[in-house]
């Protein structure tokens, strides 16, 4: 594959994100905003719009990379039930922070995308499920929605047409599992965020048991540009089968972490070494997790890869949510894995046994290896547990915990073995500043006297 030219690439999604007024409707309209929605409503019928997005090869940016137009086409054309569009703004995959930028800095781009998608599937009601922690994003979106209603972009006559659309912000309250689309729908219905068995898929029976499409923020933000600039333009960016501009989030041990808008298919090493300023403190690269903490890890030798759905899949990992987590040579992989597993154990909803128990077991076993109490057979035990967690549950949280565990143990096995052999060779951190809160296990002076007394009497 020829190298993707990222240096001359002009930003699309974040073109205006750095402008101080980028969140205002006047600024947005002044820079060609809502033209895509106008075209969608006046020049395309829903079926034509679905075909157009299918032709663009736009794939979902939330993690699974499912073709967007195809997802829309599963919604029944004729139904007596209302249809819903739900925006997944519950961005919580560790290492991912791209949707937050759109929500906080270019909310109208998202609202325009919502109008286009709602028209395509024939929905008059849309919800934007935003994670509870994003208070700023929530406020910016609320303000933008109020502006959009006032200017006739939302409401009974969207952009002067007969199309009606209501959009409501819905705040989550701190649960990773609500980023899974059926868990999100449960939460939106006012329940615990428990994922549901598929089928039926949300397109047939989703929110309030009605046909529903759940789309990621970044996916929707692409739509206005596809409408205005055309499918040929979109397909010309990056690989044919999954093209377009892509927001990639680089975090961890790099000099300049951040969100970078790049053409799909950029080489991972270009991203890390050039755009993100290279590994920090002049150190060497050890490993990269390319698509949020659920993705399988790549060793330094495997990082010469294009950042697109198919190239990463060919390497046995995934683009996921585009959260690139970089680890330098000093990183303790045992502890890094422990941190990841603790996350999944904490966030497992507990419905399915393989996930509820498996995430806890993995956390415990890797925790004891980290603490120098591991056994050599623990490594194969972990792999066996991972095997029993993949594809065995209602949703993919279980798989998401097993992938990093399996790949990190396989690829960095000597490091784990060494930790196990060393036993308690691991260093306890220094005492907390200001002295310990309490003396754990310490015997009070009073009890020491008692003990001395007792032993003197031969007890």
């Amino acid at each position, binding site marked *: 594959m020829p190298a993707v030219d990222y240096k001359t690439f002009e930003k699309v999604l974040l073109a205006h994100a750095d402008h101080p007024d980028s969140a205002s409707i006047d600024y947005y309209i002044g820079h060609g905003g809502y033209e895509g929605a106008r075209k969608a409503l006046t020049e395309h019928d829903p079926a034509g719009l679905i075909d157009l997005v299918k032709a663009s090869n736009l794939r979902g940016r939330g993690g699974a990379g499912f073709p967007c137009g195809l997802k829309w086409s599963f919604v029944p054309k004729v139904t007596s039930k209302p249809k819903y569009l739900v925006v997944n703004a519950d961005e*919580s995959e*560790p*290492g*991912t*922070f791209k*949707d*937050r930028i759109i929500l906080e800095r270019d909310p109208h781009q998202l609202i325009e995308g919502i109008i286009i998608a709602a028209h395509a599937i024939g929905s008059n009601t849309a919800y934007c499920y935003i*994670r*509870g*922690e994003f*208070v*700023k994003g929530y406020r910016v979106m609320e303000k933008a929605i109020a502006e959009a209603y006032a200017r006739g972009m939302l409401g009974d006559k969207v952009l002067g047409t007969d199309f009606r659309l*209501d959009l*409501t912000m*819905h*705040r*989550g*309250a*701190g*649960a*990773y599992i609500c980023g899974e689309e059926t868990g999100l729908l449960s939460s939106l*219905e*006012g329940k*615990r*965020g428990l994922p549901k068995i598929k089928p039926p898929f949300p397109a047939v029976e989703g929110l*309030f048991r009605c046909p529903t499409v759940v789309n990621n923020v970044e996916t929707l933000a692409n739509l206005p540009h596809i409408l205005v600039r055309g499918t040929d333009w979109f397909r010309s960016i990056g690989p044919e089968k999954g093209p377009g501009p892509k927001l990639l*989030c*680089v*975090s*961890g*041990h790099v000099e300049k*972490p951040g969100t970078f808008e790049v053409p799909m298919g950029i080489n991972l090493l270009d991203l890390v070494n050039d755009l993100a300023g290279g590994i920090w403190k002049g150190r060497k690269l050890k490993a990269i*997790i390319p698509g949020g*903490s659920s993705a399988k890890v790549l060793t330094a030798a495997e990082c010469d890869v294009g950042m697109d759905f198919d190239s990463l899949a060919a390497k046995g990992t995934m683009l996921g949510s585009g959260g690139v*987590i970089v*680890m330098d040579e*000093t*990183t303790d992989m045992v*502890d*890094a894995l*422990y*941190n990841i597993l*603790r996350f999944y154990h*904490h966030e*497992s909803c*507990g419905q399915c046994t393989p996930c*509820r128990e498996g*995430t*806890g077991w993995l*956390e415990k076993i890797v*925790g004891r290896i980290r*603490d120098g109490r591991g056994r050599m057979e623990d490594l194969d035990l972990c792999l066996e547990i991972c095997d029993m967690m993949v594809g065995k549950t209602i949703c993919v949280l279980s798989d998401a915990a097993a992938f990093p565990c399996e790949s990190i143990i396989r690829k960095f096995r000597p490091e784990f073995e060494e930790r196990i052999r060393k036993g308690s060779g691991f260093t*306890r*951190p220094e*005492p*907390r*500043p200001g002295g310990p*809160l*309490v003396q*754990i296990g310490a015997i009070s002076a009073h009890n020491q006297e008692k003990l001395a007394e007792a032993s003197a009497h031969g007890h």
Partner: protein
Amino acid sequence: MSGAPPGNTEGSRGPGVRDGNVLTPSDAPEGPGAMSVVGTAPADPRGPGSTARTTDAPQGGLPPSGAPAAAPPREFSPEARKRIDWLYTRYPLKEAALLPVLRVAEEEFGAIDGPAILCVAKEMGLSPGHVLGVFTFYTHYRRAGDGKYVLQVCSTISCALRGARDIVHHIEGRCRIGPGQTTPDGRFTLKKVECLASCDTAPVVQINDDYHEGLTTEKLDAILDSLP
């Protein structure tokens, strides 16, 4: 959330970070039970006779339902009721407004406690058990016993790689509280939380509604000193 308490990330199981990037475990003692306490929660729901262990109140997720005597019933103000009536218009089923109504209750009463659960249940025509069940699934609502400022330190991988452990460590030393605990004066609660989606500016602390990014211990001190 059956596997883990629905509160925050637990004390000693958190990640540790030393020298900026080498991860080591926390030095906190094993489990919340092992940690005795410096001072009691400002309003200990279990009454004055209970052993002071602040960890249970915010982390167990249960509002102080065991203290009926000290809990006057709660009522929504007319403004809050107006907001709730508007929320009902946004959903085809009233029940769907539960999460936003809990937010209204959080704002109205300062935190979600037992009487607030009963108030929301009565308002929405739901069973208190259902409301409590939903409430305890989520970690982000303010709970009874939380301090004026809830310091939510992200301790997931990207922040851990860039020194989140030092931040937790610093707060522990400065405020003399462990994760899940509240200072005796009720000013600060320390919580270790999962990814806040601000990994490029790690380490990050969310204090009530606001993110504070790219922290160093000096910056954190300045922020904590400047809080009213």
